């Protein structure tokens, strides 16, 4: 099913007379320095950070669903295009997708928050996917290389295992292989 391309024209409106920024008709957006926001998020509690991430990701998922209808039926390219477009409108970086076997991995390049903001970025994508698909995925920071971060999309149970493996020093390739070993070759035709 073909999907319309992502059209960001007039998505962001600067109302200079009222001094307001609108995003897709939603008022009261604020342009804030990323460093100041990263410090503010870092000083907040874990729960506060997740709430803040949901506040960012849930509107993003709603807009994604409004554009694609049911994102689960959309192609990978369409989802990447629209989800990446919405993420870019927030200034959170460039999104791409990798498939490792049966594993879904999102790749974000140029995140403004850097390494300290990876958890915030993962939580934001979590909220967006949950709002758009109705599922409850978990995004785990799988790898970090300079300006690129990989976020593995798994279940909550698998997420705990992956975090434990990564904290133990396992490389992200080993983590992916272990995931496929534990759950068996389901994709085998």
């Amino acid at each position, binding site marked *: 099913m073909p999907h319309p*391309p*992502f*059209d*960001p*024209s*007039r*998505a962001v409106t600067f109302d200079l007379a009222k001094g307001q920024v609108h995003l897709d008709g939603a008022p009261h957006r604020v342009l804030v320095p990323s460093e100041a926001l990263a410090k503010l998020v870092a000083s907040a509690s874990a729960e506060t950070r997740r709430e803040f991430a949901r506040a960012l990701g849930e509107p993003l998922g709603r807009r994604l669903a409004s554009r694609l209808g*049911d*994102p*689960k*039926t*959309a*192609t*990978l*390219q*369409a*989802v*990447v*295009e629209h989800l*990446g*477009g919405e993420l*870019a409108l927030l200034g959170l970086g*460039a*999104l*791409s*997708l*990798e*498939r*490792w*076997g*049966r*594993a*879904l991995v999102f*790749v974000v390049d140029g995140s403004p928050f850097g390494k300290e903001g990876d958890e915030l970025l993962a939580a934001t994508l979590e909220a967006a*996917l949950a709002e758009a*698909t109705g*599922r409850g*995925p978990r995004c785990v920071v799988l790898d970090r290389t300079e300006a690129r971060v990989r976020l*593995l*999309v*798994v*279940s909550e149970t*698998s997420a705990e295992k992956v975090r434990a493996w990564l904290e133990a020093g396992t*490389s992200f*390739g*080993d983590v*992916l*292989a272990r*995931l*496929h*070993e*534990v*759950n068996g*070759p*389901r*994709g*085998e*035709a």
Partner: protein
Amino acid sequence: MSANQRKVAILKTLLERVQQRAAAPRTAAKVAAVALAASATAEAAVHADDEPTPLVPSSALSSRPSDSLQLAEELTPSEEIVVVELSPTPSPVEVDELEVVEDELDSEAARIEEALSSDADDDPSTSSERPQVHPLEAAMAPMELDAISDRPTARITLPPEADPAAVLDELPKPAVPVIEEDVEPSVPQPSAPAPEITISSDAAEVALIPDEDELIELDEPLDEEVEEAPPASQVQPPTFPPVEPASEPVAAPELPRDLTTLQFDEPAEPVAEPALELEEVIELEVEESAPAPAVEEAPAPVAEALRAEEPAEAALAEPVALEDELEGLEDEPVAAQAAPVTTEEERVPAQVELVAIEAVQVPTLAEPVVAEEKPEPTPEEPRRLEAELVQRPAAAEAEVAAVVGKVESFAPTTFGELLDASLEL
């Protein structure tokens, strides 16, 4: 005080009262001021060659009652007008003239006595305000009983060179004709309004002229302007303050405040200000509509192309109609102001600007996003996996290669399939 002196004093007092009654409803101060203006005019005419006449606004008599009162106290009309010299040997002609004068005085005295009898309750305090001896009194001979009329008569002897007619003219006359004669000549007499305006506007030229002859030449047209000047009631009223700042650039910043004050203080006169705004609008409209005829005169293809668009056609048609109706629409400011607005909105340049803005915004916003999303297509992922597997350490590389080899047959077509598979891991 002799009987003659008392009689003269009484006569003067009675004359003043009669003049006051005749000038009603004007106040006594105004009457005195008018008489003073007449005397000042005569004095100025006599001494015009000696010294310049002081510039006194002609409306000062009505607009500045306090000033006129002060001047009236300083000068007495009778003192300036009547100049009588004693002469021991009057001629027969002069004696006849004097008898005529005496008769007039007698008749005046009789009327005054009648007026006094009817106005017995009036305040006679004014008779004590001038204790000085009047020149007429000095010129008068002692009162004698006339043999013919059998009435007391005072004889005045004039010098041989004196003109009896002039003396008669200078004698106090009834108040009403004096006022009417003085009000009209009082307009050009001070020569205040027109010279002030003319000199202030040409102040630089006057300063550059060194000779008095040229100054006199300048004064001549000023006199003409004075003669052609409108009556004082039209020149002097508060319409002058706006004129003065125009000649003095320093006072120009005060204009907006004056205008604002006028707008707040005189809301009951909106007729004049809208008329001015209408004139401004008309001028702007005419200026702006000037290019329209030029468009009509353009070559045929251009003119047809412009006419094909409705806004351009309206912009071309309206100025012509407006120019024809401008003069007749001054009484309807609302309609006249509405026309220029529609003319400005329907101009072609406004549409051109809108098109240009849209043409700039769309490509700049759309292209970067599309360029960012295209480099990451999903079909390239298997190759990335292979490339990344090459970079992995040897131990991990074998494991991942084995896993990938087992799921090579998995090829999701939708995002939902991949999401479900990843969540099942």
